C-alpha cells in the first residue's frame, strides 16, 4: 500500500513536470494554466466526451476569469460543470487548482473528421481535438451487408438486415415493405415472423427478410423498398431482387388423352402439344422417345428452335408398331427436352390385330357356307 | 280309263357297268291296276324310284300326273303313295305316331292327321296294335301299316313294291280286295310290283314284264297271250314262263 502510494506520487510528479512544460509552452507567460490529460480523443458519432480540466493558478495572485469555449460546432451540445453547477467563470486561489468537467456530445449526424475547439480561462487557452472516426448517421439505421439477391421465380430471396436504434429512446419500429402485386414478403426476428420490432436505445437487431416472387413473374431486376418506421424516426433500405427466367414446359396432347390404338406393323400419327410454361424462352427443344424394341417413333419436327414463354406448338409423333407386336397394351415414353428442362409423357399404345386376318377368316367361313349353298342349290331340290 | 297318268319314254338308267333300266316306254292309265312283273334285279324297283324322282334317269323322260319328277319331285310325291319293299317304320314309336308323322309331312293338320290315322288303322286291321311300338310289329303288320301309310296322304297313285310278301294268305286276299275297292270307289291308280303271278293276275288290269332292265311285254293278259302264243286263253304263268325259260319265281 505504502509502495503503491509512493509509486503514484512519483508518477504524478513526473507527469506533472512534463505537463507543466507543455502548458508552459502553450501559455507563454501566464501563470494560470488549463490542463487536461487527453487532448485528442477519437470517438464515433453519438458518443459524448467528458473532459476533466484542471485550472491551475501558479501565480501568487488570485485568479478570477471568464471561461470560454470556441470552435465547437453549433449543433453539438456541451456543458461545463463543476460539481452539479454549470460554470461560466472561475476563481482559483494562488498556487491552487480547481477541476472542471467539460462534456461534449458528438451528435449522430456528423461528418467524419477532426474537430478542434478551444477552451479559455482568462488568457490561458487549452486546445482540444475530437476525432470523429466515422461518418455519423441519422438516428435509426437500417442496413444490410448484401442488398442484391438473384434467383428464379420459384426461389425465396432471403436478406439479413440490421436495424440500429441510435436514438436515445426505446423505439417501436413498424416494418413496412413496398412489394409489387403478387409478391410476398415476410420479416423475421429471432426466428419469429414479425411486423414490428422493439429496440432499446442504441441497440441493434437482426431482421431476416424473405421475399417470394410469383411464379409467373417476368425475369428482371426488382427493387423492393423496405422501411422501419416509428412516429419519430425512420430508416429506409432498398433491396434488389434479380429474377432470372424459369424454364418449364409441358408435353401433352390436345385432348389430354394419352392412349391410342395401332395395328401391329401399322403407323399412327399423334398430335402432341409442347407448351412453354416457364418465363424464359426455350431454345432448341429436342423430341425424344423411349419405345419397345422394333418400334419406331419419329417426330415431325424433330426439334423446335425457339418457343417463347406461354406459347405452344404442335409436334406430330408417328408411332410405328412392331410387325410382330402382340395385341394389347404397350408403353411408349415421349420426351421434349432442352438442357434446362424437360417434360415426359407415357403413352399407352394398344396394339390391335389387323382386321384383315379377321376378314380372311370370315371369307373362309363364307366360302365354306357358299359351298354348302352351292350343294343346296345343286342337290337340294330333289 | 283312257287318261294316261304315268308315261315313261325311253327311260334308261345306267350305272357304271350295267344298265339297270334300258329304254323303257310305258303308259299307265288313270284308274288302272298295273302290274310290274319280273325277277329280282329286272329293273322294276329302279323304274319305280325314277317315277318318284328318287333316282335320276340317265336318259328318257318320266311324266307322273303330267309332272316331271326330276323337275318337281314334290308335286309327284304329293300325288303318289309309295310302299317300298319290306317297308320300315320308326321302331321306337307306335303305329299311330308313324302314320301321323307321314301325314304331317304331307302338310295335313295334326288333328285331321290323327283322325285319319285311326281310321286307316282300323281299315287295315291294326286298331289293336295302334299304341304298340312299330318295332314289335310282325312283317305282315308292317306291310299293312305301310298300306295305311300310303293311303294317309290320299294319293292319286299308289305304288306298291312287293306289298304282299310276309302276309298270310287270308290277309293277302283282303289286301287285294282293299286295293280293288280303292280303285273302284276312289279312282286310285295302283302300280303293283310283285313276282307273285297269281296275285298279279287276280287284280291287275295290265301288266308289264321286266327282264334285265328291258320291258319284255306290256298289256292285259289276253293281249300278252296273243302276243306270245298267238292265241288267247293262256294264263299269266304260262306267258311269264315263255319269257323266262326255266322255272317261274314263286
Amino acid at each position: 500500500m505504502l509502495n503503491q502510494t509512493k509509486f503514484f506520487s512519483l508518477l504524478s510528479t513526473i507527469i506533472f513536470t512534463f505537463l507543466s512544460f507543455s502548458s508552459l509552452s502553450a501559455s507563454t507567460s501566464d501563470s494560470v494554466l488549463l490542463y487536461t490529460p487527453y487532448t485528442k480523443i477519437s470517438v464515433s458519432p453519438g458518443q459524448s466526451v467528458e473532459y476533466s480540466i484542471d485550472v491551475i493558478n501558479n501565480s501568487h495572485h488570485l485568479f478570477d476569469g471568464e471561461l470560454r469555449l470556441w470552435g465547437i460546432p453549433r449543433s453539438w451540445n456541451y456543458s461545463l460543470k463543476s460539481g452539479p453547477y454549470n460554470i461560466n467563470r472561475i476563481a482559483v486561489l494562488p498556487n491552487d487548482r480547481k477541476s472542471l468537467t467539460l462534456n461534449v456530445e458528438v451528435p449522430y449526424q456528423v461528418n467524419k473528421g477532426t474537430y478542434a475547439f478551444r477552451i479559455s480561462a482568462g488568457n490561458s487557452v487549452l486546445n482540444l481535438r475530437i476525432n470523429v472516426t466515422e461518418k455519423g448517421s441519422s438516428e435509426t439505421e437500417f442496413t444490410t451487408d448484401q442488398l442484391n439477391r438473384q434467383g428464379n421465380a420459384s426461389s425465396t430471396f432471403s436478406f439479413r438486415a440490421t436495424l440500429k436504434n441510435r436514438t436515445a429512446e426505446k423505439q417501436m419500429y413498424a416494418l413496412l415493405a413496398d412489394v409489387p402485386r403478387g409478391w410476398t414478403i415476410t420479416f423475421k426476428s429471432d426466428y419469429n415472423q414479425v411486423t414490428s420490432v422493439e429496440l432499446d436505445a442504441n441497440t441493434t437487431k437482426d431482421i431476416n427478410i424473405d421475399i417470394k416472387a410469383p411464379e409467373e413473374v417476368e425475369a428482371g431486376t426488382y427493387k423492393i423498398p423496405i422501411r422501419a418506421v416509428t412516429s419519430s424516426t425512420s430508416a429506409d433500405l432498398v433491396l434488389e431482387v434479380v429474377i432470372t427466367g424459369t424454364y418449364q414446359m409441358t408435353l401433352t396432347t390436345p385432348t389430354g388423352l394419352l392412349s391410342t390404338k395401332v395395328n401391329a406393323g401399322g403407323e399412327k400419327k399423334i398430335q402432341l402439344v409442347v407448351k412453354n410454361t416457364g418465363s424464359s424462352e426455350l431454345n432448341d427443344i429436342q423430341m425424344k422417345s423411349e419405345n419397345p424394341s422394333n418400334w419406331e417413333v419419329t417426330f415431325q419436327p424433330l426439334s423446335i428452335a425457339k418457343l417463347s414463354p406461354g406459347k405452344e406448338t404442335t409436334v406430330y409423333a408417328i408411332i410405328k408398331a412392331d410387325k410382330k407386336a402382340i395385341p394389347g397394351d404397350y408403353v411408349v415414353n415421349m420426351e421434349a427436352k432442352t438442357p434446362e428442362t424437360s417434360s415426359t409423357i407415357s403413352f399407352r399404345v394398344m396394339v390391335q390385330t389387323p382386321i384383315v386376318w379377321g376378314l380372311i377368316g370370315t371369307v373362309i367361313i363364307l366360302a365354306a357356307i357358299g359351298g354348302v349353298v352351292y350343294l343346296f342349290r345343286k342337290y337340294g331340290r330333289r | 280309263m283312257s287318261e294316261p297318268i304315268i308315261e315313261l319314254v325311253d327311260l334308261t338308267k345306267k350305272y357304271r357297268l350295267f344298265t339297270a333300266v334300258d329304254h323303257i316306254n310305258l303308259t299307265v292309265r288313270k284308274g288302272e291296276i298295273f302290274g310290274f312283273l319280273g325277277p329280282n334285279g329286272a329293273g322294276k324297283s329302279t323304274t319305280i324310284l325314277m317315277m318318284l324322282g328318287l333316282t335320276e334317269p340317265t336318259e328318257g323322260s318320266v311324266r307322273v300326273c303330267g309332272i316331271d319328277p326330276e323337275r318337281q319331285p314334290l308335286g309327284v310325291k304329293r300325288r303318289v303313295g309309295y310302299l317300298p319293299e319290306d317297308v320300315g317304320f320308326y321302331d321306337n314309336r307306335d303305329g299311330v305316331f308313324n302314320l301321323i308323322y307321314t301325314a304331317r309331312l304331307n302338310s295335313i293338320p295334326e288333328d285331321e292327321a290323327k283322325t285319319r290315322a285311326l281310321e286307316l288303322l282300323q281299315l287295315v286291321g291294326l286298331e289293336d296294335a295302334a299304341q304298340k311300338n312299330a318295332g314289335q310289329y310282325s312283317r305282315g303288320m308292317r306291310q299293312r301299316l305301310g298300306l295305311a301309310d300310303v293311303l294317309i296322304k290320299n294319293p292319286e297313285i299308289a305304288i306298291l313294291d312287293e306289298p304282299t310278301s310276309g302276309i298270310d294268305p287270308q290277309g293277302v286276299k283282303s289286301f287285294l280286295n282293299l286295293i280293288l275297292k280303292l280303285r273302284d270307289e276312289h279312282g286310285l291308280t295302283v302300280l303293283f310290283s310283285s313276282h307273285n303271278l297269281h296275285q298279279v293276275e287276280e287284280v291287275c288290269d295290265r301288266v308289264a314284264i321286266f327282264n334285265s332292265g328291258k320291258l319284255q311285254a306290256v298289256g292285259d293278259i289276253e293281249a300278252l297271250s296273243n302276243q306270245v302264243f298267238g292265241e288267247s286263253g293262256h294264263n299269266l304263268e304260262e306267258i311269264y314262263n315263255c319269257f323266262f325259260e326255266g322255272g317261274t319265281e314263286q
Partner: protein
Amino acid sequence: MMNVNITAISQKRFNNNAKKSPYSMSLNRNKVQHPFWVMVSKEISDQVRSWRFIILVALIALTCLASVYTALTQFPKSAGAKSSEDIFFFLKLFTLSDGTLPSFTVFISFLGPLLGLSLGFDAINSEMNRGTLSRILSQPIYRDYIINAKFLAALSVVSFLFVTLGLLVVGAGLIFLGIPPTVDELWRVIFFVLLSIVYVAFWLNLSIFFSIIFRQSATSALAGIAVWIFFSIFYNMIIQLIAKGIAPQQIYSEQQAVNFQNFVLNLMRLNPSQLFSDATVTLLMPSVRSLGALTMAQVEGAIPTPLPLGQSLLMVWPQVTGLVAGTIVLFAISYYLFMRREVRSR
C-alpha cells in the same frame, strides 16, 4: 276283317304350302307346320327320348357342375391375389380348378366330342337299316330335309344343353359369389357357349359323315370314337415325337427357337380340341395376349393388361375360323355324299 269303308277318308285335296317359303315355321297350332319343322321336332324328340342322350347329358351336367363347385370352393383362396385378371372374376368359374378335378372348359373339350358323336353316329344309317329312308323320301319333302333336319335337331339339342349349362354356371356364380358379371364377361361367356356349340357341331358332323359312309351304326360309332381317342390322346404324343425328331440340333437364335415352338404349336392346332382350348383360354382369360411363343422383343414394353373383347376375338379368330370352316366342310361332304347316295329299299 278289313271292313272296306274309306268314305270316312276325306277326299278334299289338302292345301299344300308350296307357296310359302320352304322353311318358314308356323307356330300356330291350327295351321299346318312345314314338313321340315315337323321333321326337326321329330328328330329332337327322338334325341331327347334316347337313353344314350340322357346318359351323356347326365354325365356332362354332373362333371361340369362338379367342376364349377370346385371352382367356387377355390374362390376364397384365389381372391386374395389381386391382379389385372381379377376384373374378370366371374370367368374364373369356367377356368378355375383345384387340381383334382379339371375345369369346366376342360370337361367340355373332352366330353363335348362324345356328345356330338353320340348324337349323329346313326343319323343316316339307322334310317337305311330300318327301311324308313325310302318311305320318308317318297313323302313330299326334299331329300336334303332329312340330313338338314337331323343336323339341325342335334344342333338345337346341343345348343339348348350348353345354354342351360352356361346359365346354370352363371346362376350358381350369382348365388355364391354375389357379384354380377360385367357386360364384357357376359359376352365372353356367350361366345364361349357359341364356340362350344360349334365344337360339338364339328364332331356331330363327323359322326353324321361316318353314319353315311358306314352302313352299320356300330362301325360308325367306333370310327367316331377312334377319331376322338386319336385326337384326345395320341395326337399330342405323335406331335411330341415329331417335334423331337425334327428339332434343330443347335438353337442359334431366339428367333429360331420361337419359330420352332410355333411350328410345333401349329401342328398341334390340326387337332380340333387344341383349337377349342386355344379359343376358350383366350376368351375366358382376357389377360392372355398370345397363344404362341414370343421373342423378348415382342414382350418388351408390353404391360400386363387384359385385352378388350374384340381383340380377344380377333386373336382366336383363326381358331374359330378353323372350327367353323371344318364343321361346315364336314357338313358339306356329308351332304354331298348323302345326296349322291342311291336310295334303295332295305
